[in-house]
């Protein structure tokens, strides 16, 4: 070693806590938390004071009080004698109904249009583009109101209708279709249907296993159709047609009987699925485009058919890209279902606001809203994160 060692010269020492980032961090955090806590306390204090001054009872006891109002769409039992809490549960169920049906429809629409935007066919491409660009740039509330006020409510009233041969009516009271009323013997048909569906799953699995083992492939479509449609039909016939068809009939005020979909629901359903469908279409398009051309070419060069190529190569890759934004669209749709208030669709916020108004418990009702929506969001994102982690591509 060529360098001679000299005694270490002590550096200027003595630290000030002001310039120590650890201490500083702690101080800042403590101050922030304290400030927030003080702010929170101030708010709570004011709220309590205000509520006390206004002589409003707080707490969730009001949920047991008799509601007294009726709800137009009751998927579960509800009468004016039921409690506020019960009414809110009806609202949650209605929110879920519109959310789920909207999501299904928006997904179908979005995938069709998204694929349409990539079509070789100029017209299809153009049509899809126009759809996407129109509906992405219009507020969802306006779309809802357009369907409700602009379209559905100017349809004819049910009383002056000509009877329709197939029993389907679209009036300003909604969509009315015949309903199938099952009689006691119908359980056999239902059981046959269940058996048929299970059998198709089993068959698909068997086929797949067989293919892996021997390479031989068997058709699935026809046996499946036979099992799902044929089997119940046969049972139905064999048990002696244990069902009747209930046709809607015009009465003094409304069409009665059959299956009815209210215009409020229809407007929400159409608007939400059309609006969200436009976003999903863009996501799907981006997802498919994110799979490079090389992948298609390589698969084609290996001799894969177009269907196989899509199913085995493109779709699995596109899905990784599609799923996360798709989830947030689903969440958006669920949140947008709160706009049902504007057209009187009895979802959580609409019913909540009635409850709020009848009972005066604004803090509690708003808290319920927030908790329900936050809960939905949180559950979804937890699920999604898990799914994403599993799907993530392995890289070096």
């Amino acid at each position, binding site marked *: 070693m060529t360098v001679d060692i000299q005694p270490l010269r002590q550096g200027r020492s003595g630290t000030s806590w002001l310039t120590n980032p650890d201490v500083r961090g702690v101080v800042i955090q403590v101050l922030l938390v304290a400030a927030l806590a003080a702010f929170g306390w101030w708010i709570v204090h004011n709220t309590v004071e205000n509520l006390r001054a206004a002589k409003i009872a707080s707490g969730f006891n009001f949920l047991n009080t008799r509601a007294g109002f009726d709800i*137009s769409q009751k998927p579960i039992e509800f009468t004016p004698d039921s409690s506020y809490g019960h009414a809110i549960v009806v609202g949650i169920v209605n929110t879920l109904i519109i959310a789920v049906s909207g999501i299904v429809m928006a997904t179908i629409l979005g995938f069709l249009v998204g694929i349409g935007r990539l079509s070789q066919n100029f017209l299809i491409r153009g049509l899809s583009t126009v759809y996407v660009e129109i509906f992405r740039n219009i507020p969802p509330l306006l779309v809802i109101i357009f369907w409700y006020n602009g379209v559905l409510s100017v349809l004819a009233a049910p009383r002056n209708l000509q009877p329709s041969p197939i029993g389907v009516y679209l009036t300003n009271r909604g969509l009315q279709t015949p309903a199938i009323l099952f009689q006691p013997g119908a359980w056999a048909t239902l059981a046959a249907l269940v058996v048929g569906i299970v059998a198709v799953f089993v068959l698909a699995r068997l086929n797949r296993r067989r293919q892996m083992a021997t390479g031989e492939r068997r058709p699935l479509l026809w046996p499946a159709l036979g099992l799902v449609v044929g089997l119940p039909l046969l049972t139905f016939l064999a048990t002696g047609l244990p069902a009747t068809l209930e046709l809607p009939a015009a009465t*003094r005020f409304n069409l009665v009987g059959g299956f009815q979909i209210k215009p409020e629901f229809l407007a929400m359903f159409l608007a939400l699925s059309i609006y969200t469908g436009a976003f999903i279409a863009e996501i799907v398009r981006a997802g498919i485009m994110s799979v490079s051309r090389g992948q298609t070419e390589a698969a084609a060069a290996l001799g894969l058919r177009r269907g196989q190529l899509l199913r085995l190569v493109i779709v699995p890759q596109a899905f990784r890209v599609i799923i996360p934004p798709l989830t947030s669209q689903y969440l958006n749709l669920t949140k947008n279902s709160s706009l049902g208030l504007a057209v009187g669709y009895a979802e959580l916020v609409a019913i909540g*606001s009635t409850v*709020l*108004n009848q009972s005066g418990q604004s803090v509690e009702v708003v808290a319920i809203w927030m908790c329900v929506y936050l809960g939905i969001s949180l559950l979804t994102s937890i699920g999604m994160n898990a799914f994403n982690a599993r799907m993530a591509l392995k890289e070096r």
Partner: protein
Amino acid sequence: AATLADVKARGTLRCGVNTGLPGFGSQNDKGEWQGLDVDYCKAVAAAVFGDATKVQYVPLSAVQRFPALQNGEVDLLARNTTWTLSRDTALGLDFAGVNYYDGQGFMVKKELNVTSALQLSGATVCVQSGTTTELNLADYFRANNMQFNPVVIEAQNDVNAAYDSGRCDVLTTDQSGLYASRLEMSKPDDNVVLPEIISKEPLAPAVRQGDSQWFDVVKWTHFALLNAEELGITQANVQEMTKSPNPEIQRMLGAGSTFGQDMGLSNDWVVKIVSAVGNYGEIFERNVGSATPLGIARGQNALWTKGGLQYAPPIR
């Protein structure tokens, strides 16, 4: 808590009114507020400031009205609000006397040939959300063992529009409101108001609970309007009436009494009120009476002396 002091300090009265109910609270083409409830705002402003224009109107939907009052966003809620026990207690309101006796009714299209509400089973009914109307409706149909499909909408204009477009067979609200709504239909004459009145709807101005001074001011403004009518004091003759020898009138108009001061107002508070808006009868006739498009008869809202229900405690 001292609302009167706050109002005086602020220089304006914040008054919650309907977003648009002809005859009770609505804006005319020039954006001026008018209506029976609006005149109550003016009356209170006149009592406090001697100036009926010192009012800031806050249009409120049915859903907004109680929180607005509770929050102190308005000092007075003069918005065709039904006085009920639960509102009086659980919502923390105080109702300052009934300024309009109303009752819930139904309106249907003439072409349906309905003559009684009892024929309405199975009908679709449009109703405003968050109102007592919504509750009475459910009760009435249940009591008579009838079915109905509610269509619950938040704003009264939208309720009316939904009925007019045929979304519902029946429109229900307070009868006064039905008459007002009928005016808003595309063909007013094609609609009939059914005779049944299914509820008591005493409409009353409301204030926050727990401020008795302010409560008194509003309550006695109402009573002053009634007493003025009873004693024949009108907007036109109120100045002359101050010279009236009638001791009752003298007391009321502030000569030799300190009632006004005791409430925190000036002693000539009644003079200011009546010269600003007239007496109750004048207010009624001007806004909803037979000479107006609404054409509502005094009926229950006549003074007790004329067979009606309007009765005011004496000022003495």
